[in-house]
């Protein structure tokens, strides 16, 4: 009898805290519809990984190492960066770069809205994190799960669990985080700026050449990002070539769904109480908020800077859509525009900036790796 219940005595308060965090993630996913595809598997995985002597994670029992399935999956799919890259094929197949191709100026807002990544990196170093962990934390500001996983894993950060939780949670919280920041940094007059959308047809040739050329450019300028950009653009090429409709649909649905299921639950192997229940985790969650906030500020202020010189004024709210959280950020900006003036439709401009943010965040991840790698 004592043997049966001996495991109960192994329960620690930190484990119970992780069950509560797991339950909270599941609740947010189901009740609040916050990134349910990832938060639900992560929440369940957090409970699974924090049961006493859980067989789901690798344990040393009586001197023998017993491999847990979550760790096996982590080594097979995340440690070698496979899952985030496969997910990028699906994301690439889902994205319509049309609004960006018809108005490529929006690319610059994507670049400006990566400011939060680098600002947060500096802040994390100031708070005492080493360069590798600071770079991994800063990349939460990429507002892009696969890039965050890729960079944190590249630097072998111990905080990967907290980083991923922060990245996905804040992506879901974009409609709450961005509006007050945008309002704080814009005037009513600026928010009322109208941007008529001129429908420009983009030829099929351009749509097909864009992913190929972008991969080549980013590969040459930022070789560390080439895997991420390459897989993203490969997915987009599947979509745009029009002769691989079934493959494109499979990438958007089956592939993306399967990888998402595995990714979410596998990340939980890094949500073990001994890695997660720390003051640092709380600080990382707060730094993630800083990253998203400064991304938004970077995009808005860049639009205001452009307005000093441009004849056709840009609504600075569009700059905020330059973060990679697609399509939430463009919807937020569009709704804010409609709230100010029900005849002001900013969706297509914001969508252009938003997909630009997708490319920019991947480039920022590669640039961060290249720069920090030289310092360590």
């Amino acid at each position, binding site marked *: 009898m004592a043997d049966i219940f001996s495991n109960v005595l192994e329960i620690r308060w930190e484990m119970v805290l992780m069950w509560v965090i797991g339950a909270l993630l599941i609740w947010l996913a189901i009740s609040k519809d916050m990134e349910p595809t990832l938060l639900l598997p992560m929440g369940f995985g957090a409970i699974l990984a924090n049961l006493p002597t859980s067989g789901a994670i690798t344990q040393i029992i009586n001197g023998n190492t017993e491999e847990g399935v979550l760790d096996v999956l982590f080594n097979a799919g995340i440690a070698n960066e496979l899952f985030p890259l496969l997910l990028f094929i699906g994301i690439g197949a889902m994205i319509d770069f049309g609004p960006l191709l018809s108005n490529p100026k929006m690319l610059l807002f994507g670049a400006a809205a990566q400011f939060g990544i680098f600002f947060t990196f500096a802040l994390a170093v100031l708070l005492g994190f080493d360069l590798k962990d600071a770079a991994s934390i800063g990349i939460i500001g990429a507002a892009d799960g696969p890039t965050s996983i890729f960079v944190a894993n590249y630097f072998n950060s111990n905080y990967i669990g907290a980083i991923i939780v922060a990245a996905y949670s804040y992506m879901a919280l974009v409609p709450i985080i961005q509006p007050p920041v945008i309002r704080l940094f814009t005037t009513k007059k600026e928010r009322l700026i109208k941007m008529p959308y001129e429908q420009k047809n983009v030829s099929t040739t351009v749509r097909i*050449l864009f992913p190929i050329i972008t991969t080549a450019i980013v590969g040459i300028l930022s070789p560390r990002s080439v895997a991420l950009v390459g897989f993203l653009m490969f997915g987009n090429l599947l979509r745009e070539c029009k002769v691989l409709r079934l493959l494109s649909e499979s990438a958007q649905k089956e592939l993306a769904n399967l990888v998402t299921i595995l990714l979410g639950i596998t990340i939980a192997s890094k949500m073990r109480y001994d890695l997660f229940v720390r003051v640092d985790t709380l600080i990382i969650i707060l730094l993630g908020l800083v990253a998203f906030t400064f991304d938004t500020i970077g995009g808005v202020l860049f639009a205001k800077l452009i307005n000093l010189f441009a004849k056709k004024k840009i609504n600075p709210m569009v700059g905020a859509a330059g973060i990679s959280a697609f399509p939430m950020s463009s919807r937020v900006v569009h709704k804010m525009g409609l709230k100010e003036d029900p005849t002001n439709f900013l969706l297509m401009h914001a969508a252009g900036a938003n997909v630009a943010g997708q490319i920019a965040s991947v*480039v920022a991840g590669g640039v961060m790796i290249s720069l920090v790698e030289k310092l360590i």
Partner: protein
Amino acid sequence: MFNRFDLDNFLQTPRVVLLGMLGVFVALLVIYVSILLLNRVFRDKKKKD
């Protein structure tokens, strides 16, 4: 927390911030120019019709 602060590391950060943002802007500027060129070379034929 602050007792882990490393001044040498912190002094490296302005360079990373500046070069990082510059790197992102340069990469996206090159993509911007290439889209402009692509749109010019391969105009949509439907538009002409």
